């Protein structure tokens, strides 16, 4: 069975981002990019599934030349093949989903994993849109996944608990933290990845439906204030919480 994993190349959560000079995109200078952390859970689940049911894992990614770094890491973790769906500039979620759905159909992948969200734009929607376009079943925010023949039994994280759901292939599953413990890419994996080719195609993105008109950094945090050192400061603290911070 062919299993697809859709991965994105995102700014490292540890780097500080700034708004670019056009006022509507981030300034890439000095930003390090990584494999989207939620996609690591997706890759791990695909690899585990492949080991259990004899399959092939193909990595799909929409973006520019730089995405190859993330694709190579995915291959080093153990994926078998990869396709870079080339496009330049910012895309909306629908365009990304269209490009992925097109290639998933092309690959005839019956099971597709996504991270539950990309930590760059946080739309949390590409997996579900792709399932919609393909008319695949969809389980989002999965924290447990079992495949038994054509049947999927999964657990989803919901407010205050877990929900057990069941569906059948073909399906899209979006991965939440806790689904598994992603493996490290081993040194042998890096070598093996060098021998795998990254296929490149133009992404079939279609019309955009959303455009970004502006981006702003949040207002800087106010510095903390030390009101006093002992119990005598309590009244002043209470006054400030009520009158300045307005939280009591």
């Amino acid at each position, binding site marked *: 069975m062919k299993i697809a994993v859709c991965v994105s190349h995102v700014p490292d959560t540890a780097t500080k981002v700034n708004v670019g000079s056009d006022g509507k995109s981030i300034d890439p200078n000095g930003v390090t990019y990584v494999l989207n952390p939620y996609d690591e859970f997706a890759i791990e689940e695909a690899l585990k599934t492949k080991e259990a049911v004899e399959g092939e894992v193909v990595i799909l990614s929409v973006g520019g030349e730089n995405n190859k770094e993330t694709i190579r890491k995915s291959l080093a973790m153990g994926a078998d093949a990869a396709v870079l769906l080339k496009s330049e500039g910012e895309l909306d979620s629908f365009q990304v989903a269209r490009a992925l759905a097109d290639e998933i159909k092309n690959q005839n992948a019956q099971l597709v994993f996504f991270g539950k969200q990309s930590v760059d734009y946080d739309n949390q929607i590409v997996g579900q849109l792709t399932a919609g376009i393909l008319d695949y079943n969809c389980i989002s925010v999965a924290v447990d996944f079992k495949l038994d023949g054509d049947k999927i039994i999964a657990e989803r994280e919901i407010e205050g608990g877990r929900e057990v759901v069941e569906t059948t292939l073909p399906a899209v599953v979006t991965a939440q933290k806790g689904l598994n413990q992603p493996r490290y*890419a*081993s040194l042998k994996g890096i070598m093996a990845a060098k021998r795998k080719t990254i296929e490149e195609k133009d992404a079939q993105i279609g019309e955009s439906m959303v455009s970004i008109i502006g981006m702003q950094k949040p207002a800087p945090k106010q510095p903390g204030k030390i009101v006093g050192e002992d119990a005598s400061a309590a009244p002043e603290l209470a006054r400030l919480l009520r009158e300045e911070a307005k939280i009591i």
Partner: protein
Amino acid sequence: MDFHYSEDNLMIRSMVKEFTDSEIRPIAAKIDEEEKIPESLKTKLAEMGLLGTLFPEKYGGGGFGEIGYCIAQEEVTRACGSTAAFIGAHQSIGSNAIYIGGSEELKQKYLPQLTSGEKIAAFALTESGAGSDSFNLKTTAVKKGDKWILNGEKLWITNAADAQVFSTFARTERGITGFVVEKDFPGVSIGPNEKKLGIRGSSTNTVFFEDVELPEENLIGADGRGFLIAMKTLDAGRLGIGAACVGAAKEMIELSTKYANQRIQFDQPISKFQAVQFMLAEMTTQTYAMESMLYRGASKYDEGVDISTDAAIIKLYCSEAISEVADKALQLHGGMGFSRELPIERFYRDARILRIFEGTSEIQKLIISRKTIKQNGAWKI
């Protein structure tokens, strides 16, 4: 002279960093305190491929050569000097003696088990009367029928408590000869762990050989040619030590700079004081020199060029420099540097061995000056 990290090199660095950040750094203080690397970590190192980085893929290695190995060692040392010593003694000298000196059959017999970490290797050269003067070793191997009988004692053997395979050097009628000795061969025994100042998680022991029978096929290279093999192996080992120095130095710079930016005295971060800035400048400059010479030597090594002099220079400079860098890092941290709450004092202790093992600084100077004098001062390195 032109060196750039390749894409693979960058990938190795980021992956080993990711691994060490979550699997080694959190337990590094415990490894030092308990004087033991947990078995679970050794298993993970093997799974990552960190026990065979430099060897060709046909022996189960990573195929990354000396440069790849040095990058990985740098990253491991940034977290834990003991773990780096364990990997270094295993790969860079223990297994490497077989790779550098052994026949194809011997390599096929041992390297796959060593690169996979199924077995751990050690390098046994030093004896009580043969430290710097390793040529003076007294362990003997006597031919009896188609076997060799080994007798003697090896001192200060890194990994002895963990290893199943010892690349051992002994004297035969023809001169110094290398042998692969397995721990399970009758007559091999291991002394208690040495109590040390630094790299306390790395085991160091005496190894005893009493009428140990060795098959002919376990000879490393030709009878009587072992000293050269030992020296060639140490050339590679010294590059690896350079890598450990570079990794430790980069860690000291990062920790010290963060501390200096955050520690307030006289109403300002101590990084505002020129004395502190100059310490950081000197640490940075020394580290730049260390890194530059290391990868110059490692890329020459990967091209197959003889690097005996380069390796001695790298070992000498880097090990002396890391001692200074670690000392400055400690000074810059003040009392906190002296406390076991922070890793600085551990790096300070771990750095000290780097000037001693695999040839002391004085011995490196002998090697370097011999070449300089032989060439009558002509610059040819």
